[in-house]
């Protein structure tokens, strides 16, 4: 029997590693690496290696289901689509289109996300969003404002060209493991690595300078670094004069922000802040990589802005080895945002409140009555569901019941809806609350393009058939749209991409034919003969007079602080063996077998005071609820801070809903908590 090798893109993180699925007798039997792949050179982390385990998994959804008493009844697709059309249609007719909300998925392809947002908007609702809201909404808002584009500025392998790598709020060694090979390559050539994180992680093992700050004090740290850079005259005056605006106000705003003051707030010694400032500013090419440790704060947008300020005042942007690098969490979170599955943006980051946008899409889609204002964000939708302002929801490939903060109230909000459709590959906690559950195809069971964190658009091919009667999201969305009277005539992903080529300027030259090449194309790619743009901002910025904007950012403390009742700060994050809400990795035997339980990391000195030993079961409580976890004592944890991974249902019971006022991202990284040993 011959084996066929089908090229696909890893369904987990935003690094976008490619690999071949080996197919024999219509089953995925193995993985072959792709040594020429630009991001990982063939390497895959544990999740990539385990990815096939979810394809033929016994718990896959194989048939449309409707709620029947306490259980579920199977139904045909005809019946299912009829039910969905009736449920959504009735809500629109009776309550109005703005009582219906859609959640697209940063796990789905670009084509699918494009269609989901188009469906929502053609139905007249502005409420479309995706879980980027929970990871990089501040990057979208902050970087669009300061740099005029919201992507990573440089490619991942370009990190090897850097001579100072500043990693803040990212545990990339666990969460985007392949990036560490490029960090090490730079280190081999003499690069200095700075890591800022409240906890020691495998990422900080790579560090020359480790800044162990208190959660929520990033702006203070970054302002302190900027202050020192300016004080020592290490900024790039020429760059500032030619390429930026706002420097004077910025300089004024941090005049008082000495490293000593920053040290007081962050808990990082002033000397370390000074060392970091010198290394970053004086190296010939410095890059900043950041992730959710920067964004998941009530000051998320300000944190992002503070990061880009550093790059701008030192001119560490627009050249090889430099840049501002938001590392996106999911395989297609960049693409879902590019495709306009966001409350405030139509495809291509055209603002929803700009009349020009509405004019353009009304013409392109031949739709006279598009919603003309920003909609509710992913987290606001849940609040609106609870208050009755949203009556029906259609959720594709997301699990807010596990991934949103304060998850106990999320579940009751979902249950309060008149009608909920969930489309997924497994019966998630969110799907449990649905009226109709639609079985979807996983990544290797369909085709389409995904955009990784470096803006690299790659085509992923279909390797095997979906299980049972599961269907690709694209087909399901088209069926639903047609039954709601819309003209969704897309025979395949390529035909949707052709429309994207016409409506999203950044993707104009990214055609199906050109994506046949391994490694894909990096947007912006404005025409069919354009090679793509791996490095952004090399000749100015797409903002007024081509200048980037240095924005003063005052330091504000996190929403919650330590108190006598809740004396610890809980911060959350990810571990190497799991991914996000865990619906896939917790079902993957080789991953869950290695990391089976929820744990909480605590400093041994703190633990001793509480009589907690390594491995003890503890209750972690916040104002929102209690979760059980096994204590893990580690010197790597800052005193007064505890850490829990959010791949297990317990963690987000605890987290706060307090959100960034602008980007609406919840502050997953700081919740005041109490911890006690269970008897």
């Amino acid at each position, binding site marked *: 029997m011959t084996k066929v090798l089908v090229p696909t893109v890893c369904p987990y993180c935003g690094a976008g590693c490619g690999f071949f699925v080996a197919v024999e007798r219509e089953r995925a039997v193995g993985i072959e690496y792709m040594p020429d792949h630009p991001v990982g050179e*063939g*390497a895959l*982390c544990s999740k990539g290696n385990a990815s096939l385990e979810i394809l033929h998994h016994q718990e896959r959804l194989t048939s449309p289901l409707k709620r029947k008493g306490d259980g579920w009844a199977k139904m045909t697709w005809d019946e299912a689509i009829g039910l969905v059309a009736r449920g959504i249609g009735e809500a629109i007719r009776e309550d109005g289109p703005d009582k219906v909300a859609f959640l697209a998925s940063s796990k789905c392809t670009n084509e699918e996300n494009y269609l989901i947002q188009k469906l929502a908007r053609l139905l007249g609702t502005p409420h479309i969003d995706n879980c980027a809201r929970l990871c990089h909404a501040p990057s979208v808002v902050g970087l669009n404002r300061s740099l005029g584009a919201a992507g990573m500025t440089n490619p991942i392998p370009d990190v090897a060209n850097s001579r100072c790598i500043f990693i803040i709020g990212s545990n990339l060694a666990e969460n985007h493991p392949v990036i560490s*090979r490029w960090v*090490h390559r730079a280190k081999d050539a003499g690069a200095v690595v700075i890591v800022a994180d409240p906890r020691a992680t495998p990422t900080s093992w790579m560090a020359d300078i480790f800044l162990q700050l208190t959660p929520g004090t990033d702006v203070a740290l970054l302002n302190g670094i900027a202050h020192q850079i300016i004080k020592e005259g290490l900024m790039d005056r020429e760059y500032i004069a030619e390429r930026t605006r706002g420097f004077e106000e910025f300089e004024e705003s941090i005049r008082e922000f000495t490293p000593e003051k920053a040290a007081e707030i962050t808990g990082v010694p002033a000397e370390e802040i000074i060392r970091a400032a010198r290394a970053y500013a004086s190296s010939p090419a410095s890059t900043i990589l950041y992730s959710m440790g920067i964004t998941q704060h009530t000051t998320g947008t300000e944190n992002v802005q503070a990061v880009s300020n550093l790059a701008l005042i030192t001119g560490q942007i627009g050249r090889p080895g430099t840049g501002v690098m938001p590392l996106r969490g999911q395989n297609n979170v960049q693409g879902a945002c590019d495709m306009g599955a966001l409350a405030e943006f139509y495809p291509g980051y055209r603002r929803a409140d700009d009349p020009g946008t509405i004019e353009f899409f009304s013409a392109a889609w031949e739709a006279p009555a598009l919603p003309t204002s920003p909609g509710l964000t992913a987290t606001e939708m849940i609040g609106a569901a609870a208050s009755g302002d949203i009556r029906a929801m259609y959720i594709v490939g997301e699990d807010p019941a596990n991934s949103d903060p304060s998850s106990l109230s999320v579940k009751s909000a979902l249950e309060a809806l008149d009608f909920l459709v969930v489309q997924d590959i497994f019966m998630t906690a969110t799907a449990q609350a649905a009226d109709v559950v639609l079985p979807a195809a996983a990544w290797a069971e369909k085709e389409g393009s995904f955009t990784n964190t470096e803006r690299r658009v790659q085509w992923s091919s279909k390797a095997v058939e979906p299980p049972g009667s599961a269907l690709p999201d694209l087909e399901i969305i088209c069926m639903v749209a047609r039954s709601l009277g819309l003209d969704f005539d897309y025979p395949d992903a390529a035909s949707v991409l052709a429309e994207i080529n016409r409506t999203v300027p950044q993707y104009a030259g990214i055609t199906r034919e050109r994506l046949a090449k391994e490694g894909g194309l990096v947007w912006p790619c404005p025409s069919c003969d354009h090679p793509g743009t791996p490095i952004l901002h090399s000749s100015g910025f797409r903002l007024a007079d081509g200048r980037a904007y240095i924005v003063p950012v005052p330091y504000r403390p996190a929403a919650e602080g330590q108190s006598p009742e809740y004396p610890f700060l809980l911060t959350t994050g990810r571990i190497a063996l799991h991914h996000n809400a865990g619906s896939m990795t917790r079902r993957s035997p080789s991953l869950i077998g290695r990391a089976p339980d929820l744990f909480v990391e605590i400093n041994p000195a703190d633990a001793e005071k509480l009589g907690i030993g390594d491995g003890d079961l503890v209750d972690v409580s916040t104002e929102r609820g209690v979760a059980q976890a096994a204590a893990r004592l580690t010197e790597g944890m800052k005193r007064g801070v505890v850490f829990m991974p959010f791949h297990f249902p317990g963690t987000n019971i605890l987290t706060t809903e307090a959100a960034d006022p602008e980007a609406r991202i919840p502050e997953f990284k700081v919740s005041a908590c109490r911890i006690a040993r269970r008897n």
Partner: protein
Amino acid sequence: MAFYVDIRRCIGCRSCEVACERVHGGRGHVQVHFVGDSASVPLFCHHCEEASCATACSFGALFKEGERTAFDVEKCTGCGLCSLACPFGVVWTDKIAHKCDLCDGRPEPTCVATCPADALSTDFDLLARRARSRAARAAAQGGRR
């Protein structure tokens, strides 16, 4: 062929474990160990020149074959002597013995190909070059780093 670990690079992601298990029918021959909170190291067969496992095996199931310490499933009785004999604890016996076979039949050991951090390699010169440049830098800085 032998392969080498650059412990400085290992990030403890356990991809080598998962990949090895994947291509060996669910039984992996690598184990990643953590050194406190500050380092991790994958442990696997060193394919010793003087292999004590092979010496201990009375049935000829473990034997040297060029650079490799090879294993013949047919001859293994599952007695477990090799597990006791190996000074590194990297032969395991459950019913029969199993250990690293250097991914016989593949162009490169799977763990080497998959290691995201580029910590494993079959190229001794590469490892030596990295170690020497680290040593040179440390000497220049007058420290031990």
